[in-house]
């Protein structure tokens, strides 16, 4: 089943419990932190550092789910649990897919937070 970019119910819940203004700041933080995590994933993959790869994927998964970015969360979870071998076998494609999905999430979150 295809996941929506942002699960609106989850995002709405976050806004109602933490406050819309705070969530706006939190989204800004995520938009700064997530590209760093994507870079770190690439770097860990290139250098064969499985531990950092798993931990960074785990961190990205955690944040994605917080904002209701379930598809991004799923992709990150696959990397966390599957490790680097499937990525290598697919010639790095899962990382490309992750970055594409992140771009969609970043756009959607930016719009939602300021809606």
């Amino acid at each position, binding site marked *: 089943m295809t996941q929506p970019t942002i699960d609106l119910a*989850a995002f709405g819940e*976050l806004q109602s*419990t*933490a*406050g819309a203004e*705070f969530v706006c*700041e*939190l989204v800004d*933080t*995520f938009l700064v*932190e997530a590209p760093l995590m994507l870079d770190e994933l690439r770097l860990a993959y290139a250098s064969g550092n499985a531990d*950092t790869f798993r*931990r960074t994927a*785990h*961190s990205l*998964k*955690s*944040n994605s*789910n*917080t904002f209701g970015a379930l598809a991004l969360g799923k992709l990150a*979870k696959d990397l966390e*649990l599957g490790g680097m071998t499937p990525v290598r076998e697919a010639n790095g494609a899962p990382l490309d897919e992750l970055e594409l999905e992140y771009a969609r999430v970043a756009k959607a979150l930016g719009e939602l937070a300021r809606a």
Partner: protein
Amino acid sequence: MPDAGNGIARLLVVDDNKVNRLLLTRNVNLMGHRAVAVASGREALEMLRGDGFDLVLLDIEMPGMDGFQVLEQIRGDVALRDVPVIVTSSLDGLDNVVRCIELGAEDYLAKPVNAVLLKARVGASLEKKRLRDQQKALMRRFATPEVAQDLQRSGFALGGKRIRASAMFADIRGFTTLAESQPPEETIELLNTYYTLMFDAIGSHGGIVTHMAGDGLMAIFGAPLPLPDHCGAAVRAALEMIETIGLFNAEQTAAGKPEIRIGIGVASGEMVAGYTGTNERATYTCIGDIVNLASRLEQHTKEVQRSILIDEATRSALAADVGVEALGAITVRGKTQAVEIYAM
């Protein structure tokens, strides 16, 4: 430490991820509590060891020292192990949850953490901690800090072990006459002052008061924790007690109130220390011939009109320059052989 009066607690948020740190801190603040956030296990332990926290919200997957290692360190540290820890993690797998609980975590919440659930769990953990703190405070009131610590460290078990220590008995001379000459309220006040002064003198030399009965008390030097120079410590405490009573009497006289005199007996050697009573109600005490001898020496102070009497074992452990006077051998009840006694 917590603001006991207003219910505001201090929480430590430990998470290497900035978004998680900000969100957990926000949730804690919205509950009306205060949060301090750190990004690593090492920083968390430093903060915990340096400052008082009521609760920890701990992430597991962190670089360097992970949450499991933090839990292990907390559990192994007597000063920290009562601080409740709620693990907040997005690690999959029941085995991780089980491992956290086995390592002493109070609870495990999966990320993303539901704010309502978090509030309920934090509230429950703080309430449990409040009750535990209350229990500890009560225990401190009815047992010495050393016994309270011993109980916390080793748990409670009836039974004893052989130790080398000094036993001390002290009581007020002519207390019954004194009590009859003044209103009971004044006698209680006098007793409370007396006990406060005696506890201070005994405690400042490493002793613990194990029993109080009327105007008498029993103290031990060298249990539950060993005390290298227990004989010297007991004698120094006895001298301080006499000196303190002298000062107290000066105040009593100035206020037109009756003076008090005390007698102290000290004996040293092997005795059995431990908890006696029942599993429901027990007391920490020391028993043995030496303890009985200390009690007899205290009673004998009346007959020889001396304030402090000690036995041969205590005297032989004292430094050469400590002034003692040999009073010869006496026969005490329960002993077939005469014992040498000394006055301070």
